[in-house]
C-alpha cells in the first residue's frame, strides 16, 4: 500500500543547533540552510529542518516573522536568497522547470482566503486540476469533485460561485481543490483564520483524518494554539527579532521544556509554560 504511518513526534529542542535534515526517518520535505529575503532585507536565515512522511508539521512564530513567506518558498512561489528545499532527495529550486511542475503536482495548497477562482463554480474549481492532470473522463471527474466537496461538508454546492458562499465555506472549498489530486503533501496557510471554533475544530479533524487515511504529509502555517496542540507532530518556531528559527519539536514538549522563554510564552498565550 502506498500509505505511510505517522511517525512518532519529535521532541528535539534546537535553539542553537538545529537538526540535520537526515536526523529523522524518511524526510519527505527538507529545508536546508534556507535564507529568505526581499531584496536586501533578510526575513529569515539559517533555516534547517525536515518533515517526515505522514507528519503534521506546524510553522509558527510571531506576526511578521516570515511564516507565510517560508510557505511560499516551499511551494515554489518565491525563490530563496540562498539554501535549498528538497522534496525527498530532489532539490526543488535546482530542478528544471518541468521537474518543478512535476514536484508541485504532488502538493496541494490551501491559501488563507481559499483563493478560489471567482469566475468558476465550486465544481469547476475542483475539477480544473483533475481535468489538467488526469486522464479521467468528464463523468468520473464530476463524481470525484462531488466526493471531494462531500469530504469537506459541501455536498450539493457544486454549482455555486465562490461569491455566493460564506468565508468558511470558501476555505473548505479551497481545501477540496487542494485535495483534488490526492497530493502527497498538503500545505495550509492559516487554515483556521476567519473560522468559528466549531468549523476550525472540524478542519483539524479533517486534517487528522486525511493523514490517518491517506498518509498525507501536512504542513500548516498557523498561530492558532488550539489547532497547534490538537494536530501537531512537529513544529518549527520562527523568531521575527533574530530572523531565524529558535526552536523545533513537538509543541507540547516545547511548551514544557523549550529553553527559549519566547517560545514558552507564545505557546502559553502570554503566560510562561
Amino acid at each position, binding site marked *: *500500500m*502506498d*500509505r505511510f504511518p505517522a511517525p512518532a513526534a519529535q521532541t528535539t529542542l534546537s535553539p542553537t543547533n538545529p537538526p540535520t535534515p537526515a536526523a529523522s526517518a524518511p524526510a519527505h520535505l527538507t529545508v536546508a540552510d534556507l535564507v529568505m529575503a526581499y531584496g536586501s532585507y533578510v526575513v529569515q536565515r539559517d533555516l534547517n529542518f525536515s518533515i517526515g512522511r505522514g507528519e503534521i508539521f506546524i510553522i509558527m512564530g510571531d506576526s511578521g516573522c516570515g511564516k507565510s513567506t517560508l510557505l511560499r518558498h516551499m511551494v515554489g512561489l518565491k525563490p530563496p536568497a540562498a539554501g535549498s528545499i528538497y522534496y525527498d532527495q530532489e532539490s526543488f529550486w535546482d530542478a528544471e522547470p518541468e521537474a518543478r511542475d512535476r514536484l508541485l503536482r504532488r502538493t496541494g495548497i490551501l491559501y488563507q482566503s481559499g483563493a478560489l477562482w*471567482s*469566475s468558476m463554480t465550486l465544481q469547476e474549481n475542483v475539477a480544473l486540476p*483533475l481535468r489538467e*492532470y*488526469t*486522464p*479521467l473522463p468528464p463523468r*468520473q471527474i464530476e*463524481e*470525484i469533485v462531488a*466526493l*471531494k466537496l*462531500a*469530504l469537506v*461538508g*459541501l*455536498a*450539493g*454546492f*457544486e*454549482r*455555486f*460561485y*465562490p*461569491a455566493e458562499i460564506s468565508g468558511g465555506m470558501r476555505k473548505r472549498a479551497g481545501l477540496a481543490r487542494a*485535495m483534488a*489530486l*490526492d497530493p502527497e503533501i498538503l500545505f495550509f496557510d492559516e487554515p483556521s483564520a476567519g473560522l468559528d471554533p466549531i468549523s476550525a475544530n472540524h478542519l483539524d479533524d*479533517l486534517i487528522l*483524518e486525511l493523514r*490517518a*487515511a*491517506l498518509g498525507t504529509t501536512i504542513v500548516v502555517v498557523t498561530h492558532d494554539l488550539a489547532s497547534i496542540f490538537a494536530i501537531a507532530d512537529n513544529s518549527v518556531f520562527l523568531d521575527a527579532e533574530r530572523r531565524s528559527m529558535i526552536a523545533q519539536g513537538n509543541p507540547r514538549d516545547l511548551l514544557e521544556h523549550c529553553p527559549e522563554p519566547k517560545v514558552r510564552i507564545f505557546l502559553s498565550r502570554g503566560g510562561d509554560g
Partner: protein
Amino acid sequence: MANPMTAEADFQDSRYELDQPRQDTLRIRFFGDWRLREQLPTSEAVDRYLQSDETIRHIAFDSGELRSWDSGFLNFLVKLGKTAAARQIVLDNRNLPQGVERLLALAAAVPPKATYSDHAPASLLVRLGEAATRFGATAADMVGFLGEAVLALANLARGRARFQTSELLLVLQECGVEALPIVTLISILVGMILAFVGAMQLKMFGAEVYVANLVTLGMAREMAAMMTGIIMAGRTGAAFAAKLGTMQVNEEVDALQTLGIPPMEFLVLPRLLALVLMMPLLCIYANLMGVFGGLMVAAGMFDITAVQYITQAKVYIGLVDFQVGIFKSVIFGAVVALCGCYYGMRCGRSSAGVGLATTSAVVSAIVFIIVCDSLVTFVTTIVGI
C-alpha cells in the same frame, strides 16, 4: 462457493473481479493501483451482475491484491454504495483498507444541500423577463446614484462634503497631467486625418485653404471633446471602476460606511470633480494639438502656409465653437466619472465582478458620450449656436 462467475473490467493496472462465495453474497476483489492518475474501472460490471442475479443481498470486498488507492477508489465505493442502497443490498466493509471507511463516513457526514434552483436553467421567456426587470432596476439604480452625486455636490457647495484634498489632488494628477501624452498623440492624429480627408475633397474645387476651417471647426465643436472623452473613458473611467471595485471587494467601502463617512462624498466626489475640472483643460489642449496636426498636413502636403492656415481659421471660427466643445467636455467628464464610479461601487464581492465592472464602465461611458454628444449637437443646431 456457488456460481463462481467472474466479471472483469480492465483499465491498465487497476481492475476488479467478481465472484460469489455464497448464494446471496457478491465479492469484489480489487487488484492493482487505484489512483486518479490512471484510468479507473467503472462499477458497470457490478451493476450488470446485480441485475442478472436478484438473489444477492450482501456485497463483500477483498483488497488483499490492492496495491495503492486514493480518491479514485473511494469514488468507486461511493457509487457502489448508492447502487447497493437502491437495491437494499448490505455492504460488508470489513476487508476494505484501513482509512477507507473513515473517509466514506466523513463524505456522508454532511447531507447534500437539498436545492440549488437559483442556477437551474430557465426558459427563454423567463430569461427575457428577468433581463427586462434587471434593466429597469439598473436604470433606477443609476438615477439614484446620479441623485446621490448631485446631493454630494450640493454638500460640497455648502462646504460640508467630506473628502480628502490629497485624494482630489492625486486624482487630478492622474486624469490631468498623466493623460497628456495619449491626448497629444490621438489629437494630432485626428487633426491630421481630418485635414487629409478634407483637403483631398476640397482640392477638387481648388479650395484647399478651407481645410483650416474644416479641421478647426471639427476639432472645436466635436472631435476634441469626443476623442478626449473616449480616451478618458478607456483610461480613467476603467481605473475608477477597478479601484472602487477592488475597494468594494476588500470591504474598504463598508469600512467607510460604518464609520459614517458617505462613500459618495469620500470616493466618488473627488473623482467627479477631478474629471469635470480636467476635461475642459484637456479639451482645449486637444483642440490645439488637433489644429496643429491639421496644419502639419496642410503645410506639408497642400502648400498652405502656416499664416494662411491660422488666418483662415481665425476668420471663420468663433469663440462660441470652442465654447460648445468645452461645454461638451464638461458633460463627458461627468459621464466618464459617474460611469466608472457607479460600476465600481456596484461590482459585488468577487474579482470577476471587478473585471465586469471595468468593462461595463468603459462601454457605458462611451455609449453615453455619443448619446450626450448627439443631444447637445441637436440642441445647438436647433437653437442656432
